[in-house]
C-alpha cells in the first residue's frame, strides 16, 4: 500500500516537474493582454480618432511585453455591435469603444462576454464590466473664451459646432462665459454642420462665419479646415482635439487636445493586475486629460492671462461654471457662490445669456 502510493506520488511529482515549466512558460507567453480599440472615424483625421490612436500607441510603447493592441477604424455607429463582438471573440481582454454612439452595442456585447472589460468614451451608462471615461473639454473652452474675449476686434466669434449634444453645448457655454468675463458684450455666431469630420463642410461654415463678421473661429469638429480658412483670410482660430499648429502657424491661438494616454495605460494595468473595476472617469486639465497646446499668435499679456487661468482651473480656484450663471431665458441656473454640479453639465441643453441663437434640437 504505502509503497504503491509512494510510487504514484513520485510519478505525479515527476510529471509535474517535467511538465511544469512548459506549462507555466506557455502561460507566460500567452499572457499578453489583447487590447482592442474601436474608432468611429479614420485614424488619420488628425482629430478625435487620431488622439485615441495615440493613446493606443502609447500603451503599446509602455507595456510592450504585456500588451498587444489592435484597432478598427471607420466603424459606423449603426453597425458597431458586430465589430465590438468580433474583437471580444478574437480574444481581447480590454476593449475601448471611443464614440458615444457605441454605448448600447458596448453594453450588449459586454453582457455576452462578462469576462472582458470595456471602457466607453463620452457615454453615461455603465455595468459591471463597462466603465466610462471622458474629458472636461469645457475647461479648455473657458480658457479659449477668455483669449477670444481679449483678442476679438469685431466683438464677434464664430463657432463651428457639430451636433447639439450636451458635450458640445457645455463647450459653447463655457467658451461664452470665459469670453464674457473679459468682454461682457461679446457675441457668438454658431453654425451646426451635423458632422464630426467633414473638411469641406467645415470650410464652408468657416467662410460663412468669417463673411458675417467673425474674426476669431473656434470649432467642435475634427479637421483643420476652419483653421486653414482662418489663416487664408488673415484671422485667428482655435484648433480642436489635436495640436493643429502645423496646419495654420499664423492663425492658431491654441488647441484643446485630448490626452487619453494616462487613462488607457492605467486601465490596461488594472486589468493585468486583476484590480479593474467599473468606474466613471471625467478628467480635466488637472488630470492631464485635457491639454492646451502652446499659446501662440497672441501678445504676451494675453498669453500670461491664459496661463494664469489654466493654473487657476487646475488649482481649483476657478471653475468655468462658477455662479452666477444665467440661462438665455433669464432664469438663474447657478447661484452666486455655487458651482454647477456635474449632472447639470453632463445634461446641458440650454444656452447662457448673451448667446442670441436659439438652441433647436
Amino acid at each position, binding site marked *: 500500500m504505502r509503497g504503491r502510493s509512494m510510487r504514484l506520488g513520485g510519478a505525479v511529482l515527476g510529471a509535474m516537474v517535467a511538465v511544469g515549466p512548459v506549462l507555466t512558460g506557455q502561460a507566460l507567453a500567452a499572457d499578453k493582454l489583447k487590447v482592442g480599440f474601436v474608432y468611429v472615424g479614420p485614424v488619420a483625421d488628425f482629430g478625435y480618432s487620431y488622439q485615441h490612436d495615440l493613446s493606443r500607441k502609447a500603451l503599446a510603447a509602455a507595456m510592450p511585453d504585456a500588451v498587444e493592441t*489592435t484597432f*478598427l477604424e*471607420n466603424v*459606423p*455607429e*449603426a*453597425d458597431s*455591435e*458586430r*465589430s465590438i*463582438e*468580433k*474583437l471580444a*471573440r*478574437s480574444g481581447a481582454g480590454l476593449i475601448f469603444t471611443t464614440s*458615444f*454612439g457605441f454605448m*448600447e452595442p458596448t453594453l*450588449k456585447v459586454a*453582457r*455576452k462576454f462578462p469576462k472582458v472589460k470595456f471602457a466607453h468614451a463620452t457615454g*453615461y451608462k455603465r455595468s459591471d464590466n463597462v466603465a466610462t471615461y471622458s474629458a472636461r473639454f469645457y475647461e479648455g473652452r473657458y480658457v479659449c473664451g477668455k483669449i477670444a474675449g481679449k483678442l476679438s476686434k469685431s466683438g464677434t466669434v464664430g463657432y463651428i459646432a457639430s*451636433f*447639439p*449634444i*450636451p458635450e458640445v453645448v457645455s463647450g459653447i457655454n463655457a467658451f461664452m462665459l470665459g469670453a464674457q468675463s473679459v468682454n461682457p458684450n461679446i457675441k457668438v455666431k454658431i453654425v451646426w454642420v*451635423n458632422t464630426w469630420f467633414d473638411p469641406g463642410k467645415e470650410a464652408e461654415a468657416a467662410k460663412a462665419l468669417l463673411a458675417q463678421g467673425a474674426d476669431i473661429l473656434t470649432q467642435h469638429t475634427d479637421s483643420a479646415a476652419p483653421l486653414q480658412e482662418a489663416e487664408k483670410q488673415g484671422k485667428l482660430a482655435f484648433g480642436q482635439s489635436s495640436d493643429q499648429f502645423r496646419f495654420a502657424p499664423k492663425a492658431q491661438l491654441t488647441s484643446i487636445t485630448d490626452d487619453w494616454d494616462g487613462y488607457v495605460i492605467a486601465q490596461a494595468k488594472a486589468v493585468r493586475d486583476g484590480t479593474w473595476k467599473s468606474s466613471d472617469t471625467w478628467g480635466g486639465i488637472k488630470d492631464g486629460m485635457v491639454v492646451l497646446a502652446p499659446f501662440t499668435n497672441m501678445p504676451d499679456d494675453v498669453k500670461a492671462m491664459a496661463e494664469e487661468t489654466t493654473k487657476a482651473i487646475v488649482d481649483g480656484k476657478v471653475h468655468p461654471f462658477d455662479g452666477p450663471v444665467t440661462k438665455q431665458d433669464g432664469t438663474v441656473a447657478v447661484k452666486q457662490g455655487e458651482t454647477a454640479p456635474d449632472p447639470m453639465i*453632463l*445634461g*446641458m*441643453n440650454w444656452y447662457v445669456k448673451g448667446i442670441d441663437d436659439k438652441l*433647436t*434640437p
Partner: protein
Amino acid sequence: MRLDLVPRIRRSAVLDILAPALAFVAAVMVGGVAVAALGVSPGAAFVTYFVTPLSDVWSLQEIALKAAPLALIATGLAFCYRADLWNIGAEGQFVVGGLAGGWVGVATHGSGGSVWILPAMLAAGALAGAAYALIPAVLKVRLGVSEILTSLMLVYVAQLLLDYMVRGPLRDPAGYNFPQSVGFEAAARLPYLMEGETLHAGVLIALAAVGLGTFVLARTLFGFEVRLVGASPRAARFAGFSDARLTLAVFAISGGAAGLAGIVEVAGRIGQLQPEISPGYGFTAIIVAFLGRLSPPGILVAALVIALTTIGGEGAQIDLKLPLDLTRAFQGLLLGLVLGADVFARYHVRLVPGGPASRTAP
C-alpha cells in the same frame, strides 16, 4: 475591328447562370491582384474574405443578419426594376419605415407590453415606407418627373427627418439629452431565434418576403404584368395593363419592403431610434438586386455573397490590415463584371475584323 452584338432570340439559359459565376471568378482574380499590390498574400486574403466568415456559428449568424435586410429590400426593388422603373430611394424608405415603426415602439413604451405592439410596429414601418415611395411614383405618373432623381433626393430628406425626430420629439427624456430614443422594451423587440442573442426573427421575415416575391412574380397575373411591362411596354399596353396603376403598385411594394426592412433592423438589431440606423443597406440592396438578376431566388444568393464579403472585409481589416474600401471597390467591380457578362447571355457577341459595316446593301 468592331464589336458586333446580335440579339439572341431567347436568352441562353446556360449562360444565365454561367455568366455571373464567371464574372465572380474574374472579380476575385482582379481582387487578388489588387491585394498583392497592397503587399498581402492573395491566398490569405481569399481565405479571410470568403472562408473564415463561414467557419463559426456566430459568424454565420452575422452573415444571415446582414443578408436579411438586403434580400428583403432587393426583392422589393426587383418589382420596380423589372418594370423599368428606377427606385433609387430605398435607403430613404428604409429610414422612414424604421422611424415610423420606432415611433410606435416609443409611443407604447411602458404601456404594459401587449402582444400587438410588435405587429403594429412592423405594419407601421411597411406602410410608411410604401407611402414615402409613392411620392416619387405619383410625381412620375402625374407629371412625368424622373423617379431616379426624386427618389434619391428624398433619401437625404428622410435622413434629416430621422435626425430631427431623434434629437427632438422622440428623444429619451432620461438620456442626458443625447440624441437617441428610449430603449425599446421586450414587447417591442423581435425575438431571438437561438442562444447567443444574435440571430433574430427578422431573418424569417426576409425569407418569407423572398418566397412571396418569387411566387408573385412567377405565378400571379400581377407578376406577369410586371415582367411584361419591362420587356415590352407596347405589348403590355395592348394587353390593357395600366401604366399608372402599375407604377404606383411597384413603388408601393418596393417602398413597403424597404420600410419593413427598416423597422426590422430597428426592432431587431438596434432596439431604439438613433440618428443613424442604416449602414447603407438601401444602396447596397441595389447591387444585390442586379447581382441576383432581378429574380428573388438569385437575390437571396447575391445577398448572402455580399454579406459574406462585407463581413470578410471587416475580418480582413483586423487580421490583414486591408482597408474596407477594398471591399467596396470589389463589390462595385463585381456588379460591373456581372452586367458586362450578362451581354453574353443576351447577345451573340462577335469581334468582326475590318472597318465599319458597309452602308449600302449589295
